[in-house]
């Protein structure tokens, strides 16, 4: 097996983006840690089946996302917040004043994006995943990814705009 697929190398390279992805899904530090650990546990058990080292990132993110969905199905422990009226088509909102955004507010707003859209949006920003990679990780068609991204980004923008308008984000 490729040396780059060594367990410790993989932990060093991906544990941080995996945690951030997990945190955006679970919205809880302990749950996110748990998801990341579980992902690496599965890698230890099944990762040797992966022959193509270039696909390891997709494999890890897909596994984490599947674990999240499975945990949700079994225990419904993870929070799920619906944005009101999220289902209708959202307009392209004007850009936000970028200098008024901070990490806490962005994370909070991201957490409020409808769960269906949150995963692609996080992958979009976190890893610069291509649309094809996001489709592969989430196991949905490319068109669905683009549609979910459009809606998710519009929701995020709307939430941040609302936050800034309400004086929530510090300047």
């Amino acid at each position, binding site marked *: 097996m490729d040396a780059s697929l060594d*367990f410790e190398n993989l932990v060093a390279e991906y544990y941080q983006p995996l*945690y951030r992805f997990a945190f955006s899904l679970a919205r809880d530090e302990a749950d996110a840690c748990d998801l990341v650990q579980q992902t*690496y*546990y599965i890698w*230890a058990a099944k990762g040797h089946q992966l022959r193509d080292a270039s696909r390891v990132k997709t494999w890890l993110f897909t596994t984490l996302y599947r674990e999240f969905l499975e*945990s949700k199905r079994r225990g419904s422990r993870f929070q799920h917040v619906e944005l009101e009226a999220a289902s209708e088509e959202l307009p392209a909102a004007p850009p936000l004043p970028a200098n008024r955004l901070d*990490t806490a507010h962005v994370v909070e707003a991201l957490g409020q994006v409808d769960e269906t859209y949150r995963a692609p949006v996080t992958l979009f920003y976190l890893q610069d995943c291509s649309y094809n990679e996001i489709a592969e990780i989430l196991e949905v068609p490319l068109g669905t990814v683009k549609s979910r991204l459009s809606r998710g980004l519009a929701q995020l923008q709307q939430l941040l705009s609302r936050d800034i308008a309400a004086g929530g984000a510090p300047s």
Partner: protein
Amino acid sequence: MMTREEAQRTLLLYRPGTSDAEEPDIAEALNFAKQDAELSRWLEQHCAQQSILREKIRQIPVPVGLKEQIISERPKLARERVTQRVIAMALAVVAVLFVCWRAGLIGNGPSADENFAVYRTRMISAALRGYAMDFESSDPAKIREYLVKEKVAKNYELPNGLQKAVATGCAVEDWDGTKVALLCFSDSGPQSAGGKSDLWLFVVDRNAVKEAPANDTPQFAKVNKLITASWSHGGKLYLLGSFGDEQAIRRWF
């Protein structure tokens, strides 16, 4: 031909500095923006915003020690695979192990990777992450009967305090091929069978876990969100997990 609205909507998905510009629809929208001053200004702001959002999301703080925790709890399987990469060395190790085994230097106990700390973390993780309740009942006798039928943790003994807890059911977990009984209770009072559990007792053959507590004096430790108590008794290893602090878990003894 794209309209400005269509181009703007398409460009919402555009991230500067990535391969997005190679997507045909985005490339078309970018070309459109070059010829449309208003859209061009919007795109400039949009790109600045995308960069900021990307930066902020990448600044989500990662808990200190997570990397070390993952590596320290690296499952046995991963190490086995590393070993397999060096076949000659593995053969030599096997040969040496065989000689040692014949000499009685190696027992049949679990490997170092199967130690108690890893067991405790993995079981608590199972409790927190959700599990399929195999048998739902508030009747401790029926739960015991089910576990006997499943040939797991026969003759387990509950501490006095825990005998008064409200049972919700049980499940059978796996620890490296050994069955682990998971008895579920509700700390928050009586409720229907199968109701939400917030107190968990894992029981396994003590020999299946290396470095397990030596006696029946409980050892307390915080694991993830739970406080845990661990002890050995009658050839079994017990692991109790609940929310709260050490004081809270002590009342179950």
